[in-house]
């Protein structure tokens, strides 16, 4: 996240204002810089050529925008879904374990709560960096061992433990899905690709010369501000652990609380 972390502390309106205002300022600087070197009059046929080039860049930019936006949205949604599904399986494990006798129930409760707390705590922080927590991995292994070592006293307990075993298997898959989605969510390469596309589009637009500088700046501000707004959407969604679209570890905290009851 590095140098952009302070941006994510801003609210949505401030971020949008910064993106649009910053874009307009960049365009204005570009217009000023291009005005320094170009002749006061637009070159003959210059707008037609610049317009044709912009017409070529437009569908490419559109495709890149949709590609990056869709991908970041899918990764975000995958992470959110995997988190919820994993927490729901932990709830099912908790409720099923509650029907067991002691001391089996206490051991399983401890293992479930330990894993839930490890995910809500150290692993949530690790996921923000695209990683995983060794502590949470150990807690997961402890949970698996607890179920493997459980001794049913009745046929009903055997059924409950069998059900729990299938949930443990699914839990492992959902955990991996969650961690992979977290690692893929923040993709600097994707955002860099988007930034380059926006920059190229703005640069191409600078070659167009309207009759007055005022209209050039006004249209340029609208043009660049729109591109920055669209890029902002992908930027915010690509940071699922910070900023306006921050995902909460509350589902896992709820599991730990539930076990405690």
């Amino acid at each position: 996240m590095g140098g952009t972390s302070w941006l994510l502390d801003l609210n949505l309106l401030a971020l949008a204002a910064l993106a649009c205002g910053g874009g307009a300022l960049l365009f204005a600087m570009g217009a000023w810089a291009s005005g320094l070197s170009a002749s006061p009059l637009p070159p003959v046929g210059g707008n037609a050529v610049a317009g044709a080039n912009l017409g070529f860049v437009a569908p490419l930019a559109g495709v890149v925008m949709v590609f990056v936006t869709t991908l970041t949205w899918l990764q975000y949604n995958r992470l959110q879904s995997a988190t919820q599904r994993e927490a729901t399986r932990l709830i099912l494990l908790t409720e099923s374990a509650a029907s067991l006798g002691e001391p089996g129930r206490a051991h399983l409760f401890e293992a479930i709560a330990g894993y839930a707390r490890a995910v809500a705590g150290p692993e949530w922080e690790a996921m923000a960096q695209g990683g995983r927590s060794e502590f949470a991995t150990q807690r997961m292994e402890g949970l698996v061992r607890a179920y493997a070592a459980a001794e049913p006293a009745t046929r009903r307990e055997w059924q409950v433990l069998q059900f729990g075993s299938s949930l443990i298997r699914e839990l492992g898959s959902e955990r991996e899905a969650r961690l992979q989605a977290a690692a893929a969510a923040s993709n600097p390469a994707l955002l860099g690709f988007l930034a380059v596309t926006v920059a190229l589009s703005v640069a191409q637009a600078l070659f167009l010369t309207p009759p007055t500088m005022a209209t050039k700046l006004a249209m340029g501000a609208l043009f660049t501000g729109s591109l920055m707004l669209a890029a902002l959407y992908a930027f915010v969604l690509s940071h699922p652990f910070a900023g306006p679209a921050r995902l909460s570890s509350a589902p896992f905290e709820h599991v730990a609380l539930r076990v405690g009851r």
Partner: protein
Amino acid sequence: MTLETPEGLLLWLAQQPTWIVAALLFGLGILFTLGGVLLTNAYLTPQRLIANNAVASFKFAFMAEIFAGLMAFLLVGAGDRYFTANSQVFSEVAMLDGLRVVVDVMPEIERRPFEQALAEYAGAVAGAEWESMARGDESPFAAAAFEAMLAQWFALAPSTPQENSAVLLGNQMIAVAAEARVNRLNNNVSQTVASLSWFTLLGLAAATIAFNWFFGTGSLRSQLAMALVLSIGIMTCTVLAFLLSFPFAGEHAIDPAPFVALAT
């Protein structure tokens, strides 16, 4: 819910009848379009605007590509969420109904607490949770009722081979019901993300409409007419995407009737 935040405003609008949503969005779009055209024509001469047409049209065509792409993304996403949420409702109800059938093999004294817990959960979903989902939230009351239903299920003590088979089958059904519940709640996008999506789309729509102000024609009337047609086109897509984005709010909200039937 407060109208002072963008999220509050979106939620309020989502809960209004369709004709109010359409009237507001179309009305605002048309006013913005026509007002801007009149304003620019008041401050700039038609000749200056006409001289701008070539450059403005190139940039306008570019923005059309970006707007269309993002609109397609939002429309497809909203439509998918709406129809998936609908199917998840029926999926969850089918499993819960299956549990009612499965538990029937047990003696009444054994199965009664579970049946009551299931009815209470269904009632909580149809009532409190449906209202919460209209706001993009889940209901803690319904979540607690769900956990209570799970507790009653796992408290069942089968004593015959038939009852054992029923419980084994029921375990699979309850897992599927839990999955469907999670998917139903997940499809109801969080208000923050919904606000972000709408913020972006409406900002782009406004910028696209505003670009139109920099065009000039020899006739203000024809320019106003073209701007009106453009605005209607943009707002039609916007209204459609808006109506699909809130599957549990408004006139086209998904019906809780399947859960109501389970609660009785």
